[in-house]
């Protein structure tokens, strides 16, 4: 059984097109799966739907299974247990993830004490262990500090420590390194990789950086306007992208060594008010044909995975 299995997830929230349209993906135990897309492509919504943190007016269909249990259909009590101990999320901005008026120790033990009912002393000991595990020096005194006394990189370590607190099996990293300095970013990535490997966690790694995803993940899903346009193993995706959007993303990043012209993807990312009858990428695609604007492309099997593009249909 897959650790996380999203099946045909469609989410509508009042725009002219759905936020997500028929998204399917899976994360296995010990696997890092990348989710790449521009802002507004719906990648954060997928992560939030795994914790059922969706806007109240959203209309949802499809299934989100964590270890076989449908998150979208479970009781509030089961949902709280899932959020507390089975799935943890790491967010983009660690500074806004922590309550500024509460101590680091409170943040780390809150889940253990107030949701899982562990004794305070035990939770505190766990918190110290976790801080040590994510490489913080002097963890005892950190517990008494406030968020504004720590740097962004330190805080992200605290957030990761808190995510590991109840021993989850799935981590959702939503742009977890995007707001950090480059050096801290590398440290944080190494840390994520280490804890993921040590604990055999499944990880959904969300980023807008296709290069980073290709380097960090086992498999990558490329998301465009709420649909998965290509999903393949990282290396193959990077070496020979099959969807024009994936190719466009790779071509618009400058590279050292092999000088080539930077070609930005023309146009702008679609908003929720742009509705599409055919392929959502058609307006920006260099290879658009008649068929692209009229019919929605279905995923086609390509080497190692699938891509949704009319050009690949034979």
């Amino acid at each position, binding site marked *: 059984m897959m650790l996380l299995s999203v099946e045909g997830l469609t989410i509508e929230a009042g725009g002219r097109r759905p936020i997500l349209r028929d998204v399917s993906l899976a994360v296995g135990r010990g696997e890092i799966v990348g989710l790449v897309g521009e802002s507004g492509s719906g990648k954060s919504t997928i992560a939030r739907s795994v914790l059922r943190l969706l806007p109240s007016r959203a209309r949802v269909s499809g299934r989100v299974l964590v270890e076989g249990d449908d998150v979208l259909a479970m009781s509030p009590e089961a*949902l709280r247990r899932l*959020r507390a*101990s089975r799935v*943890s999320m790491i967010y983009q901005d660690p500074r806004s*993830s922590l309550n*500024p*008026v*509460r101590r680091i120790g409170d943040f780390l033990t809150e889940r253990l004490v107030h949701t899982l009912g562990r004794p305070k002393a035990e939770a505190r000991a766990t918190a110290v262990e976790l801080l040590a595990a994510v490489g913080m020096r002097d963890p005892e005194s950190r517990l008494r500090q406030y968020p*504004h006394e720590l740097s962004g990189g330190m805080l992200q370590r605290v957030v990761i420590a808190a995510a590991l607190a109840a021993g989850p099996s799935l981590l959702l990293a939503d742009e977890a390194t995007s707001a950090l300095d480059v050096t801290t970013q590398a440290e944080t990535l190494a840390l994520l990789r280490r804890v993921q490997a040590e604990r055999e966690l499944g990880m959904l790694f969300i980023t807008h950086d296709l290069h980073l995803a290709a380097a960090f993940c086992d498999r990558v899903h490329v998301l465009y306007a709420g649909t998965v346009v290509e999903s393949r193993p990282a290396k193959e995706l990077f070496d020979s992208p099959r969807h024009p959007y994936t190719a466009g993303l790779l071509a618009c990043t400058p590279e050292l060594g092999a000088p080539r012209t930077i070609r930005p993807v023309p146009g702008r990312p679609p908003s929720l008010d742009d509705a599409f009858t055919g392929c959502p990428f058609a307006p920006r695609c260099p290879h658009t044909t008649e068929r692209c604007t009229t019919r929605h492309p279905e995923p086609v099997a390509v080497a190692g995975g699938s891509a949704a593009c009319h050009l690949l249909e034979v």
Partner: protein
Amino acid sequence: MIRKLAGLLATLLATSFVIFGASYAAPGDPVTFLAGGKENLTPEYISAIRAQHHLDDPFLVQYGRWLGDAVTGDLGRSLQYNDQVSDLLAARLPSTLGLVAYTTVLFVVFGVGLGVLAAVRGGRVDAAVVAGTTFATSVPPFVLATALTSLFGVQLGWFPVMGGGSPWHLTLPAVTLATGALAIISRVTRQAMIEQRELDHVTVARASGLAERLIVVRHVLRGALGPIVTMCGLVTAGMLAGTVIVETAFGLNGIGSLLVNAINTHDFPVTQAVLLLMVTAYIAVTTLVELVQPLIDPRARRSG
């Protein structure tokens, strides 16, 4: 801390000057009232009184003498009652302080409670709280006082109608005063909580499985505490100078009724002392609120 204290003293000094200046500039010659009526006024008598009360000295000299006395605790002698002003104040102060304290408890409990309710429930409850508190606040205190007296005092007989001395006596006056503050306190609470609720760390707490009740208490209300405490402090401080109507309506012998009486009878020493006391109390409460803020928000401790 020292700068804060110096600022405090400067404010007090400035207000004392304004208070003294205002009563100096008030219409009517104090001599007329001191002599107890126009018919007694012979030129010798007038000059005797003027000399006794140092009324012929320049303004600044009079102010200096008054301030010097006030600092050493001598607030002068009431012209009307012929008692020491400080004795008069000491006799009246407990009623007013008790009333304000009682009122503060009431409006903090009910104002914050209603604000939390409105923010958490939203929808119809929210609309009902906003409409209800707005209505309650827009009823003038003397009307409310009369209504409460006739209902709970006269018809039901649950509470005494007049006089002070026990919490029992202070209940209706405190309810009257607190009602006026409900709208502002509940709305500040509601607004602050709604702002806090939108913050990322609240979503993070929710994503960690924390129960909604705990999210409200530990994160939303905790974060909203700063503005709530500030507003409660300001309202309480303002109330110290605003008990006149309620004291009059319920026949309480407090500071407010003492002040009105003193003004009506041109009892300058009492007027000045009461005003000075009110300003001091206001400054004390607002300073206290300021000192409490760093305890509420650790980020405010850095500059201290």
